């Protein structure tokens, strides 16, 4: 068995979250009745003229800036011709020779190591329609149904350099890319709705060799898991072939989720000949550098920057910081609570614990409302268990934390003067046991503490009670 180096490159399609389509004014709403959001332009009817959506250019530029790309003020559209039922015009308007963005990178952590994947290019193009196959997969479908609502939605295609080395790294990269797109607000990146899709190219070469092997393209990777599993499968398949001295065939394969394997896709007719030429219906883009600068200013703090800030300025662990980065809404809430002056570690513990569970069910709570609860706990006015009960109430009523504590009489009673009479009463009612304690049966202390707690409906501070009891019984 020879050992091989794996070389992976990804092509990611991200649907941009515009209100209207890329080249016409049809809606982009997901889940509308089929073929209800189409017009002569996106249906490719003769005599129509496309007009570029400014927002799509803005979002594509923003994505390029967030991925450290060079933004080209001049870029051009091309016509890529092919026959496929999801393509109503029988060509796709895309950018071939002069893309909007090139030469970027994304940095992310893989275990403890900061790694970088180069972004070769990002270009703007239009989405195709959606196909629903009659069979479980495209290869065993007698017919397919086509919905053109999706046709013409703006997309960016992000192409990485072939410098990803393992299936797991491919997955981590895609997860980080998705997070980044969410942070900059250009896409909802829902893989299950197809607004983030990934194709992967993978080849193997003898370890250390500088010559790339024959690559295979895998399509239809609809989840992070599918991406990782398909690449793992393809690594095994290709290494077995190479071990036997067989050649890898350059081809497109599709991932069969159920069978857990990739299968060859052979389309009818020739190998694709896209006959790409400059799109005659659209003049080239000539962006104003000042406009690009404005977009640059609108790029918010990105995930890796936030991670560093949480670790370095707020003293959080990688684990805690990662949680607050991956769940951006929790991160935002953390900063608001920290701003109020609460202790950082206790905020993050609280957010990752009971709060996370309840917030997922009911939605987030205003920072001020939460801060009051955390303050009561920090001051020792309520116990951790009581805080949990108050939190549940906070989600279901309009009262403030302080009001709930008062209403339920939850406050911890730690004042010895207030507790002294209760302690005396309990000892008075259990004289026999008190005598046994004095005779050395000290384990009875727990019983007395329990009695005081019961008499105060759990409000007494157990520490103070124990001390008072020991003092009393020592006499």
């Amino acid at each position, binding site marked *: 068995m020879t050992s091989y180096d794996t070389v992976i490159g990804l092509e990611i399609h991200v649907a941009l979250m515009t209100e209207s389509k890329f080249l016409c004014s*049809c809606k982009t709403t997901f889940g509308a009745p089929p*073929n209800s959001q189409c017009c002569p332009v996106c249906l490719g009817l003769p005599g129509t003229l496309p007009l570029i959506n400014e927002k799509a250019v803005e979002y594509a530029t923003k994505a390029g800036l967030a991925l450290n790309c060079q933004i080209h003020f001049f870029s051009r559209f091309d016509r890529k011709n092919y026959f496929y039922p999801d393509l109503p015009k029988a060509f796709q308007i895309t950018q071939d020779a002069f893309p909007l963005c090139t030469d970027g990178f994304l940095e992310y952590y893989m275990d403890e190591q900061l790694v970088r994947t180069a972004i070769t290019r990002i270009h703007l193009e239009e989405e195709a329609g959606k196909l629903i196959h009659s069979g479980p997969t495209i290869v065993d479908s007698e017919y397919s149904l086509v919905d053109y609502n999706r046709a013409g939605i703006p997309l960016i295609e992000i192409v990485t350099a072939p410098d990803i080395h393992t299936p797991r790294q491919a997955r981590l990269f895609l997860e980080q890319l998705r997070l980044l797109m969410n942070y900059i607000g250009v896409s909802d990146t829902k893989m299950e709705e197809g607004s983030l899709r990934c194709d992967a190219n993978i080849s193997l070469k003898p370890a250390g060799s500088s010559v790339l092997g024959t690559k295979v393209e895998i399509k239809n990777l609809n989840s992070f898991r599918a991406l990782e599993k398909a690449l793992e499968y393809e690594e095994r398949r290709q290494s077995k072939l190479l071990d036997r001295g067989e050649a890898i065939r350059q081809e497109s394969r599709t991932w069969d989720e159920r069978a857990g394997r990739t299968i060859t896709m052979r389309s009818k*007719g020739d190998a694709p000949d896209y006959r790409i030429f400059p799109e005659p219906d659209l003049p*080239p883009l000539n962006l104003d550098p000042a406009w690009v600068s404005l977009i640059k200013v609108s790029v918010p703090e990105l995930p890796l920057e936030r991670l560093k800030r949480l670790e370095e300025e707020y003293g959080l662990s990688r684990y805690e910081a990662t949680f607050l980065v991956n769940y951006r809404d929790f991160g935002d809430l953390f900063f608001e609570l920290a701003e109020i002056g609460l202790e950082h570690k206790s905020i993050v513990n609280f957010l990752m614990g009971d709060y996370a569970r309840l917030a997922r069910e009911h939605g987030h709570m205003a920072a001020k409302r939460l801060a009051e609860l955390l303050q009561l706990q920090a001051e020792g006015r309520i116990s951790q268990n009581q805080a949990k009960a108050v939190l549940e109430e906070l989600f279901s009523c309009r009262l403030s934390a302080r009001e709930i504590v008062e209403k339920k009489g939850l406050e911890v009673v730690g004042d010895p003067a207030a507790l002294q009479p209760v302690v005396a009463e309990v000892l008075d009612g259990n004289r026999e046991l008190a005598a046994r304690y004095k005779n050395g049966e000290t384990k009875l202390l727990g019983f007395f503490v329990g009695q005081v707690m019961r008499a105060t409906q759990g409000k007494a501070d157990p520490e103070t009670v124990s001390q008072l009891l020991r003092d009393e019984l020592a006499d």
Partner: protein
Amino acid sequence: MLIDRQEVMRMARLARLELSDREIDQYQKDLTSFLSSGQKLQQVDVSAVEGTSHAVAMTHELRKDAVGESLPQAEILSAAPEAMDGFFKVPRIVEEQE
């Protein structure tokens, strides 16, 4: 010969055109003649001319991201050879796997 019969048949397949033998011969002659005329242009010295992608020098025009009218579903499907449940229905796309 700039274009042979094979090439005509390939283009016809790409364009989804069904041509008779006689038409293939005719197109082979016509296309060869077109390209021969085109070859004359190759002799022009264009070394001082800047490359262009569009015949008319224009700069882009962008529209605001605003939603407009779409066509009713029935009208959209009215041109479909076959429709089903609001969808266009198309025949088998990919051949059987090996």
